[in-house]
């Protein structure tokens, strides 16, 4: 963690990706991908299937190591390509997966309890006792994600949309600096989609968010800067109107 050259810390970005390449058996999933996310920003990432969106998430969260390029976090203070999933999670990067993954056998409350920012080593969890501030925080998160009514239900019995929200709630409980949200509205009804957009905007008031999404109506509703990926590199960047009028974007994304 300490062997990062000092000049890298000159970036003001929360997340800084420069020239990232990843290839799987010769297939270039990411090709010299570069972009930055400023603190407090919400960014939407769009792009056709195979554009490298999920691979990018994998690189940021330590699941995949980049073949080349730099990934820095917090004004260049941490080199994410040298850390593993757990270390990165503890730095304050929370990730929501494409397929909702909550702990199905645990209650909604326990799911949040596990996510809650807390000492995570073995001894601490063995001796853990519930405390008032923690319960209050769980209540707050339950309010935010609108699941207060089902707090003691087993997460496996929730509807698809509720699971997505619960997972977002787990991210919140982690108190991350950066939230990576992969396709939060996949499989949601229109009403749920709009509610999710509201939820993310609410979260963005205090946290930096990166959203990967296919649903254009949803991205439009978010009303934030959009980055369009294609074949592992940035194709266009700007407001949703700007990007969706870009000829190349229309060509690769909206059908050739």
């Amino acid at each position, binding site marked *: 963690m300490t062997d990062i050259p000092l000049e890298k810390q000159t970036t003001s970005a929360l997340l800084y990706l420069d020239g990232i390449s990843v290839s799987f058996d010769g297939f270039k999933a990411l090709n010299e991908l570069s972009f930055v996310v400023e603190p407090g920003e919400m960014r939407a990432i769009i792009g056709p299937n195979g554009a490298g969106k999920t691979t990018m998430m994998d690189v940021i*969260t330590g*699941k995949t190591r980049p073949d080349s390029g730099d990934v820095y976090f917090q004004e260049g203070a941490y080199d994410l390509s040298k850390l593993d*999933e*757990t270390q990165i*999670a*503890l730095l304050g990067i*929370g*990730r929501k*997966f494409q397929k909702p*993954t*909550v*702990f*199905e*056998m*645990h209650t909604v409350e*326990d799911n949040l*309890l*596990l*996510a809650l920012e807390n000492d*995570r*080593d*073995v001894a601490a*969890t*063995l*001796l*853990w*006792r519930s405390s008032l501030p923690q319960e209050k925080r769980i209540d707050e998160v339950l309010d935010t994600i609108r699941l207060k009514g089902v707090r003691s239900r087993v997460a496996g019995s929730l*509807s698809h949309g509720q699971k997505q929200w619960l997972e977002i709630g*787990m991210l919140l409980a*982690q108190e991350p600096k950066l939230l990576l949200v992969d396709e939060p509205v996949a499989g949601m009804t229109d009403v749920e989609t709009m509610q999710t957009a509201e939820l993310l905007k609410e979260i963005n008031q205090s946290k930096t968010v990166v959203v990967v999404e296919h649903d254009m109506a949803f991205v439009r509703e978010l009303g934030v800067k959009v980055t369009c990926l294609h074949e592992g590199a940035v194709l266009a960047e700007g407001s949703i109107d700007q990007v969706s009028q870009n000829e190349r974007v229309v060509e690769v994304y909206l059908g050739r």
Partner: protein
Amino acid sequence: MTGAFPLIRLLDKGAVVFLVLLGAFAIAIPVLNLLVPSSSALHVSTYLVALFGKYLCYALLALSIDLIWGYAGILSLGHGAFFALGGYAMGMYLMRQIGTRGVYANPILPDFMVFLNWPELPVYWYGFDYFAYAALMVLLVPGALAFVFGWFAFRSRVTGVYLSIITQALTYALLLGFFRNNFGFGGNNGLTDFKDILGFNVQAETTRNALLVTSCIALAFGFLICRAIVTSKFGKVLVAIRDAESRTRFLGYRVEAYKLFVFTLSACMAGVAGALYVPQVGIINPSEFAPGNSIEAVIWVAVGGRGTLTGAVLGAFVVNYAKTYFTSGILAPYWLFMLGGLFIGTTLLMPRGIIGTYNHWRANRSEKKVAAAPVASPSAAE
């Protein structure tokens, strides 16, 4: 208030029922064996005392497997190895207690070493004439092996069926090792002909009853330790790892540390079970390392209900009672078919096991009661 809360959490209704039954068992069997005259119909024979003592050790082994399989999703098919290692540590103590009463009357060397013309006691046999040292080894040897094995396996993220296979390989390798005479543990005969334990004759009725009570206490302790673990936040993390390992990792938990802790603890419990088993059956030999034994122990847990703790104990009793019953009658040649059938039947028809199915049935019933009571229409919810 905060002091009482963990105790309530620890002892739910099922746990209390279990402990009361176990306590009653620990009192009733010695009373019926020692105080009721053998002419009475209520008399429990010494043979049965030893048999039940054996079952209790199996139950503790099953409990240790349930802790890692039922809660952390680690399917060890080599837990018999830790059981046998604990057994050997106790066996070595018992061998040293024989002294000059052996066939060759050597005050230091066990008979098999004299037979093999060994001039002196190997270094790793030192200290086993002290019970406290042997007791420490009962915990330490299985624990250390599990720690080293787990450290490599979990760090390399070996999971699922691959982990199960290497645990099989582990116990098989030990089986081959302990079969060798020059390994220094009595080769294929193992360790036997025990005389005394802590100065008491191992064959005596009172000693057998004392061992049975000790096994009950060990089982109760093991159960309470497991309960404390699975009802803590640590236990919730274990279940989280079982159900969604990578999610747990992305939440910032060191999954391998959790697995390593619980795996090592489980191996120590299995070691204690083995140590109590050996004086009650009077022998420990390499066949205890046989991969089949470890798989059988997993079947007990599956039949009783994984992830329930009490189910593991019940399963160990039910399957072993069935084994004793059927292998002593005309059906003896077919026992392995029955065991296999039992496992397949459980997997297909009752995947939750006995206790798991019961719990599920009760949960469903109370849910229906709740659903029937309020007037709210269920269609509005979806």
